């Protein structure tokens, strides 16, 4: 069952400082309210994966790996490849992470990242069909959180996208319903580049890209994922607070322009 979480004692002590600063228009790490932390993305960090990417978002560190293998399609999409996103909150990433089956937070993160990729139609899944109804390629995106300093969703979405852009597979032809791999290497067929932007509300003030201290004292967060033509493809509110319709519209508008910058920056680094 989903249950209210206990705030860590350290976060309780820090709470007043973080809230006071934000109230004065400042932040714990000297950023402006709408500043994103420095972001770096490195592709191809794990050779055995079809694709991989490591993202630093400030001190948050996330690694994503893509594995591609043949499998059976879903009955309702017999001619489309399968996308699966999974997230692992590795216990070494935070004192609050525990080993074991995924909890609601990692499930939520994986599903929000999944929605961004799926709903923006980032991958042309039809091109991953081997034999309709029988065999298609399955793309597994596994997100590994390695260091948790806040805003895991944005970092995970960026790492997942980077790993997909980086992913290579053998080109194939189909003989008797089986894929025959060719010498030629091809990328995963990408047609959109979804970018997530998360804002949090702390004491009535909205700030972008929360660090861990801010996330722990937030009233709520809103993640907005947009595709390359600025269209919205996924959204998720989290946390125990609420937002007025005007606050939401403001956040959405800011997120769209921020995502545009971040996407351009990321694609220029990656290509």
């Amino acid at each position, binding site marked *: 069952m*989903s249950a209210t979480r206990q705030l860590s004692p350290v976060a309780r002590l820090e709470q007043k400082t973080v809230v006071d600063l934000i109230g004065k228009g400042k932040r714990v790490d000297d950023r402006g309210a709408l500043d994103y932390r420095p972001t770096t993305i490195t592709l191809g960090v794990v050779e055995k994966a079809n694709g991989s990417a490591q993202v630093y978002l400030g001190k948050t560190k996330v690694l994503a790996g893509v594995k591609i293998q043949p499998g059976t399609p879903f009955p309702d999409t017999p001619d489309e490849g399968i996308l699966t996103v999974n997230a692992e909150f590795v216990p070494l990433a935070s004192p609050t992470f525990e080993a074991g089956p995924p909890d609601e937070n990692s499930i*939520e993160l994986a599903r929000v990242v999944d929605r961004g990729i799926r709903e*923006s139609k980032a991958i042309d899944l039809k091109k991953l069909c081997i034999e309709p109804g029988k065999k298609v390629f399955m793309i597994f995106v596994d997100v590994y959180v390695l260091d948790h300093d806040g805003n895991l969703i944005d970092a995970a979405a960026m790492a997942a996208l980077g790993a997909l852009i980086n992913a290579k597979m053998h080109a194939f032809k189909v003989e008797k319903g089986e894929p025959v791999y060719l010498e030629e290497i091809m990328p995963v067929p990408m047609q959109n580049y979804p970018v997530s932007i998360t804002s949090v509300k702390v004491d009535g003030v909205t700030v972008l890209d929360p660090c861990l201290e801010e996330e722990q004292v937030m009233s*709520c967060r809103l993640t907005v994922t947009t595709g390359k033509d600025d269209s919205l493809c996924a959204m998720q509110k*989290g946390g125990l607070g609420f937002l007025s319709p005007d606050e939401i519209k403001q956040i959405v508008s800011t997120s769209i322009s921020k995502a545009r910058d971040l996407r351009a920056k990321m694609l220029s680094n990656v290509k």
Partner: protein
Amino acid sequence: MDNHKQVRLLDENGIRVDGRRFDELRPLKIEVGTLDKADGSAYVEHGRNKILAGVYGPREAHPKHIALADRAVIRCRYHMAPFSTDERKSPAPSRRELELSKVIREALEPAVMSEYFPRSTIDIFIEVLQADAGTRCAGITAAALALADAGIPMRELVAGCAAGKVDGKVVLDLSDVEDKQGEADLPVALMPKSNVVSLLQMDGSLTEEEFKQALDMSTDACRRIYEMQREALRQKYHVVKDEADKEEATEVNA
């Protein structure tokens, strides 16, 4: 979806497959206090959705270590019955149900005055008996009433309703076909008195303008549902009062 299976979701007059206008809600039926043992309960039919919500608590936190010193722990379980969908759904909780349990809890929790009951738990159970798109929103509508029915102090009620996009047009309260073949879905829960949104999710494809339109449409619908929730709560006490009146009358007659 295959193209040949596609049905037209809007006709030339903008009327939807089930005959509704773009901003029309599906019929709602709300009953409060439908369960005997639960501290609070409510049953909601929203279109073909049939949803039962039960609340237990405030009660002793169990296991004890989950208790919070300054407020009640609120726990929530959203679950779909195996027979609620076209294909049988495994009764084991899916990743989707785990995510929805979390966002539903986060939608209801701001309305509950949990600080009155430190070291206790309030358990919310939502069972989807039949699913027809919009179950999380109808679940919130039902669960808010079950909490009120349990006599738990609340800042206000919470009402849920989705908007979305079908055939390029923003419409309210998607049905099953519209959800499966439509272009976007935007589930929203509203605390109507303070006009704040406590649940917001979205998937599909919307422009910023369409989003604003969909958000306004769904919050407006939440306000309409809120009036029905209040009426359903009052109704329960009318029934109680009617019964008391009847008893009084028989006593006078005797």
